[in-house]
């Protein structure tokens, strides 16, 4: 169960090697989280993450989970929920893709969309139903500031996050009043292994800052969290910039 400050005792991470997810897990383990499920494709990185979190004092399990294989989500995630209540699900998987390459390789572009959007839709729905049945729990979904407006430099990734973002908003409304809580997190540029080597955008942030914002959002039972918070205003302004101008902005 969550405590008065919204801190979960059990956590399921979809995308168990995500830097943001692991920073969040570390933060929550320092408070109340005692059980962590790491779901992801089997890899040494996933096992290492589990060992690391175990070292911090959590009972940690890994499960084999492939975002693209939507058919399998019900069975795999169903097993986790059958083991006991999950107080928080963090949907953190996603790929950035390689925009220049993916524009030439439509199949690769579709894989970005499948992972970030369709994989998220099926797994989030499985989790949402389970959270609703247990009458409590948070589904925290990592969207992106890129979901807010298409940018020339990453619109394939951005469009997949836009789909996820819209889906999550609707899911939050669907679950309102059921005891389950859906929280949408929109980070800006985060310095992670996913963005390593990319030119940094303004207002760049860190996985730890996202983790802090998630913990605060849980306490406030927020529906949308921007990281950093100032992005909410920046994006409110940018959304209304005419396209002819937006196109020329150095974003």
């Amino acid at each position, binding site marked *: *169960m969550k*405590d*008065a400050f*919204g801190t979960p*005792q059990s956590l399921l991470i979809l995308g168990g090697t995500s830097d943001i997810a692991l920073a969040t897990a570390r933060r929550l383990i320092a408070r*109340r989280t005692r059980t962590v499920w790491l779901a992801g494709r089997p890899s040494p990185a996933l096992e290492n993450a589990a060992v690391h979190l175990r070292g911090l004092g959590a009972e940690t399990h890994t499960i084999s989970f492939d975002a693209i294989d939507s058919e399998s989500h019900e069975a795999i995630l169903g097993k986790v929920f059958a083991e006991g209540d999950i107080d928080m699900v963090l949907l953190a998987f996603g790929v950035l893709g390689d925009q220049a390459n993916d524009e030439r390789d439509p199949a690769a572009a579709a894989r970005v969309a499948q992972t970030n959007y369709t994989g998220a839709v099926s797994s989030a729905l499985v989790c949402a139903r389970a959270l*609703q049945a*247990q009458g409590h729990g948070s589904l925290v979904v990592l969207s992106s500031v890129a979901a807010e407006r298409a940018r020339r430099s990453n619109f394939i990734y951005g469009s997949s996050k836009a789909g996820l973002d819209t889906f999550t908003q609707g899911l939050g409304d669907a679950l*309102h009043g059921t005891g389950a809580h859906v929280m949408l997190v929109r980070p800006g540029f985060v310095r992670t292994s996913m963005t390593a080597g990319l030119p940094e955008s303004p207002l760049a942030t860190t996985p730890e800052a996202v983790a802090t914002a998630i913990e605060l959002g849980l306490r406030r039972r927020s529906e949308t969290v921007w990281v950093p918070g100032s992005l909410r205003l920046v994006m409110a302004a940018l959304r209304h910039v005419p396209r002819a101008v937006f196109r020329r902005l150095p974003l």
Partner: protein
Amino acid sequence: MPADAAAAAPAPSHLSPDRTTPVTGWGRTAPTAARLIRPRTYEEAAAAVRACGARGGIARGLGRAYGDAAQNAGGAVLDMTGLDRVHAIDADGGTVLCDAGVSLHRLMEVLLPLGWFVPVTPGTRQVTVGGAIAADIHGTNHHVSGSFARHVLSLELLTADGEIRTVVPGTPLFDATAGGMGLTGVILTATVRLLPVETSWMSVDTERARDLDDLLTRLTATDRYYRYSVAWIDLLARGASTGRAVLTRGEHAPLEALERPKPSSTRARGGRFSRRDALSSPLEFRTSRLPAAPAFVPEGLLGRTTASLFNEFWYRRAPDARADELQRISTFFHLLDGVPHWNRIYGRSGFVQYQFVVGYGHEEALRRIVGRISARRCPSFLAVLKRFGEGDPGWLSFPLPGWTLALDIPASLPGLGAFLDGLDGEVAAAAGRVYLAKDARLRPELLAVMYPRLPEFRALRRELDPRGVFVSDLARRLGL
């Protein structure tokens, strides 16, 4: 009673397999959804228990437990306020037999005109008899009277098998049920021993203590002369005045106190009052009611500045010493009941109530904790310190002989969770404990340290309720 959150429209979603309602405790933190069932008969209650399904059920009274004791995520919550009959009053012997859903308010209405009072009342009348037993509540007379269950002569308990058992004091099932947070079964009725009174007035002495040491000395020296004794403590005061307080002690006023000519130092508070009126109906139970707190209050309205100003005012308005003031029962015991929904003033994040007890001989720990709260500048309004008497037989009953401090703090205060964890450490090291009826955040690891009879409680539950029919969010969170 459903919490405020229940006012939200039910989800129209086709994801909903069943109609559920969000439920919170009085602190309005951590809402979870459950099927609310309101039995009107014992048979309906038994049927609800038999049909409550895989996620079990828990009884709920008027929702005054601050934390998650009367919530059951995904399961059933039995709203017991529909079972609210007073069956029999023995006006000569001083006992009452009533349903568990009867509130202390209702009992006072019925009993005071007959010259009887409830044996123990907490800071609100809006608790049910069932809740009072399940939390084994205490009042400001604990040092004299112990907690509520000590005055229960017998009770009827609906257990997991759907049977109704008569439970009497001195048996393991009674001691597990008193303070057992509703986890042994649903209390259906209780027979309670009452306190005779001559009037519905309190004779009250008030004095100020300039710091914590002064307060502890005064309480230790004079507590035994008063049936009711409590200190409001200013936890925002720092430096030399850390722990300054206003002591309020009282006794039920005898009839002759109303007849006595009014000395110049005596004033009466608690509504317009003339001695003649009081004398004409000495046992009249009258309460006052202010407008309810608004439904939406901006977060952070109650910050340090507001709390400091309020505390300064509250301390200054109290006299250095005043004796034999007549107050109404509602003014003396239940000040906050005058403001319906006062829990809303903390905004949507809600608040946590922190109450702990440390035994006599551990005054150093108490001093350290008060020092830490005061240094941390927790914006707390009505912090209360009192002395407990002998411990109670309930296995999970809260009181033990020592000092208890209760304070409420907005849950939105940054870093509050870690801060309170630190205080828990001090409390546990001093062989103290926190109060489960108020808890919403204790580290599960500390539970067995604070409640040494927890293994017996767990064993009895396993035997009595092997399928785990009775369960609450509190029980899940702490592994009760």
